[in-house]
């Protein structure tokens, strides 16, 4: 497969040029709470980015198994932020028309912030279930737990500065 150097440059721009200094030591993979489920591992994902192998880097669940715990980032001996590489790949994959369920969740999340300035969990969950009906069982279980406790926010809380928030999301998304 041909190297996609634009892809590599874009990852470096978003995640930091220090990614180039990766020595493939695997500290990131060894620290990751979901490493056992990842294929490729986070270490290998970074290698794929540096080799410009865009399709292989994006076509897997590794990105979406990242819990954003930042342990890789705290521990990397080269000062690389593997979590930022994951974020960069999420950002790049979000530009594609065809989206995974995970990418759709992120998109719906940001759309809610754009529209209301805040997140209301019930409408967010409802919208996500339209994309991913398989999530229904879990959502019902949680709903049954939270509803009697009065912990499901039904109203959508809209802030005054919605235009400003919209501008932040639109203009800063370089």
């Amino acid at each position: 497969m041909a190297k996609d150097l634009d892809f590599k440059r874009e990852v470096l721009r978003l995640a930091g040029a220090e990614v180039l200094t990766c020595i493939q030591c695997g500290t990131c993979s060894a620290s990751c709470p979901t490493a056992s489920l990842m294929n490729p591992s986070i270490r290998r994902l970074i290698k794929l980015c540096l080799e410009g192998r865009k399709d292989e880097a994006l076509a897997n669940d590794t990105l979406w198994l990242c819990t954003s715990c930042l342990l890789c980032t705290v521990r990397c001996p080269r000062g690389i932020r593997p979590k930022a590489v994951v974020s960069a790949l999420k950002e790049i994959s979000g530009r594609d028309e065809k989206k995974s369920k995970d990418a759709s969740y992120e998109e719906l999340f940001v759309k809610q912030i754009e529209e209301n300035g805040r997140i209301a969990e019930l409408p967010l969950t409802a919208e996500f279930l339209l994309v991913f009906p398989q999530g229904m069982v879990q959502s019902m279980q949680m709903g049954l737990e939270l509803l009697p406790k009065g912990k499901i926010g039904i109203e959508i809380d809209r802030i005054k500065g919605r235009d400003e928030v919209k501008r932040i999301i639109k203009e800063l998304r370089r």
Partner: protein
Amino acid sequence: MKLAYYPGCVSQSTGKEMDASTRAVCAALGIEIEELADWNCCGATHVSNELVATGLAARNMAQTDLPIMTACSICYSNLRAAEERLKEPEVLAKVNAVLDKKYRGAVIRHALDVMLEALAEGDERIVLPLKGMLVAPYYGCLLTRPAGLYSAEFPVILETLIRRLEAEPVDFRKKTACCGGPIFMPQEKAADDIAFGILSEAKRAGAEVIVTVCPLCHLMLDAKQKILEQKGGEKIGIPVLYVTQLAGIALGLGPEELGLFMNSVSPMEIVEKAYERMSSES
């Protein structure tokens, strides 16, 4: 001491008891708080573009000149990370170009640290010392990351607070492990396995209660506990309290004020036990 209080989105839903107990404890400790005007979502862990995430945090931070306190570790981590990035002039210029009120620096604090500062050792406001209560200090990830005030892997501030309330922190191996929460919607099984591992470890460590500093950790360990017990095939039955609820109990605040009836695994038994221990001693 006066602080701006950033409740965060969960304060209106799954984290109502976090919000209630934070307000109640601040009132009891004489910490004056003023809700941050027209605050917006911090983006949680779902805004992948760092500059956008920085902008969302900067808008919040630009609403006040007071130090900002939050009880949510996700909000806390995002505001702190943004505050760090905004030290770069290029980032600052780009962000301020789109903000109405301009960002001019900020001090970000977690409710845990604010409470600890306000509580002296042997503080007479601790009317119910939690003597003998075995507490698992669960930090999760984002209170201590990105690295800054606390060690990212071996923090001790929660243990310090637990001891100040005269309870006993258990040695909890998974105290800074991730709860899996950020991916629980689209990657249910992965998240559940991680969260069950934390609960199971807390049980092994002999904890009577787990204390959390993050509403997502709380959701995973408390609201999901019954579901996780079924999946994991092990009874856990450990109440999970927000650190503000635990402190509130020691300060003698009532269950209504602290939202204790909103917890899924009822903490009332351990509260009663604490009262019993106190009355048998006196």
